[in-house]
């Protein structure tokens, strides 16, 4: 049967991989290519890259470890697709078919739409018609406000006032292939996953759900996999800072009877 995936998420800001907290504080971790090689060496199930640069064009202005700098999303995808032989998802700042065409032509297997999907739902339909449902992921950032889960867009800065459950159902209607769920409140807090909300979204839709936000140790992965039917367990920071974190987490999941690769 299909395995539960364990997915490192790499946030790129101005051409560098960063650690993120509360969607606000970003600490540089290193060069995109070097980090990718590290994850590639771990034989990971899948990688998700989200570009969170606020400006569309930037100049890195520095070269790490003799690897050239990359000044755009497009350049990055070209380079990583030569190194990675696993499914690659790219997201961040996608607003039109032009962006999607470019990313898929240059090696992305899936693209992740967030604000772009919310503001122009027609884009989701156009993209799935062209590339198939499996290629389109809708990424949803949410916060809990007085116990209710609410969708935020624009790097978590705009409160849409729309309920997470309503938007998740809508995403399925629009024809997305997957939902990538990110709890803003838990970003970088290492306090565990928001299992209750994640479970509710999984019940509400038949789409595969990848959940992110809050991973602090490998037990958090096990808890999430045991208590929900999550398809993908995602984390960012934890993988960056813990030596051998990925294989260790896989071992722990296996030991607990979770069907992983």
């Amino acid at each position, binding site marked *: *049967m*299909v*395995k539960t995936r364990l997915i490192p998420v790499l946030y790129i800001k101005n051409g560098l991989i960063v650690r993120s907290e509360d969607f606000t504080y970003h600490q540089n971790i290193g060069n995109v290519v070097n980090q990718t090689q590290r994850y590639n060496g771990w034989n990971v199930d899948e990688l998700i890259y989200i570009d969170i640069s606020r400006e569309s064009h930037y100049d890195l202005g520095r070269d790490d470890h003799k690897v050239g700098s990359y000044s755009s999303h497009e350049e990055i995808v070209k380079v990583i*697709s030569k190194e990675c032989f696993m499914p690659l998802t790219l997201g961040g700042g996608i607003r039109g078919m032009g962006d999607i065409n470019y990313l898929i032509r240059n*090696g992305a297997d899936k693209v992740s739409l967030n604000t772009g999907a919310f503001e122009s739902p027609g884009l989701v339909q156009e993209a799935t018609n062209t590339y198939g449902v*499996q290629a389109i992921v809708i990424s949803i950032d949410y916060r809990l406000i007085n116990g209710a889960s609410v969708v935020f867009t624009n790097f978590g800065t705009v409160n849409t006032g729309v309920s997470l459950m309503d938007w998740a159902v809508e995403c399925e209607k629009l024809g997305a*292939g997957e939902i990538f769920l990110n709890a803003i409140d838990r970003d970088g807090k290492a306090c565990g996953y928001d299992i209750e909300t994640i479970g509710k979204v999984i019940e509400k839709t038949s*789409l595969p759900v990848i959940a992110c936000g809050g991973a602090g140790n490998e037990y958090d992965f096990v808890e999430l996999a045991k208590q929900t039917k999550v398809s993908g367990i995602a984390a960012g920071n934890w993988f960056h800072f813990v030596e051998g974190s990925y294989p260790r987490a896989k071992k722990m999941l296996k030991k607990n009877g979770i069907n992983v690769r």
Partner: protein
Amino acid sequence: MIGIINYRMGNLASVQHAFTHLNIESRIVDHPSEIKECAKIVLPGVGAFGKAVQTLHEVGFFESLQENILVKKKPVLGLCLGMQLLFDESEEMGDHKGLGIIPGKVISLKKEKPSFPVPHMGWNNVTEKQPSLLLKNIHEEDRIFYFVHSYYCKANDDKSISGTTEYGINMDTITEQAHIFGCQFHPEKSQHSGLQVLKNFAAL
């Protein structure tokens, strides 16, 4: 030289990157006349069966592939939709005739297994049904590959199938018959195990 057939639908770049990474010579074949320069053929594929068959006809690949595979006996490896194209026919969006190289059909997963999410997407096991050249040098516990598909292959003759995958039903996911090979998964996206499949094909 391995020729990767470009019928304007597949993710050709990642297949070629994988061969380059393995130091195996490959080229993108844009026109049927270029097949003669290639000792082996890879038929990649992402997309719908009917559209792929139509494009193969338009570009003139259809007859030329049949000739190279059936008459000249060039080794071929079909990937995902590329494997399905080797079969007689598919139910995908109306009935369509394939290359007719492997007797059998391509069937809708949704029709067969309505309660399972379609597409079948993610990592899943392949069980060796008979000695497989493509699975050579891959340990049994590492025979896990990346799948994305909504239709699956059903060969008429079990002898042409060397690997199957369970997803509510048993799907034929590796076909091997003389010089004709196909896998339903994406070896170019299946990490070390997938790269080994490509290496095995290249070493034939």
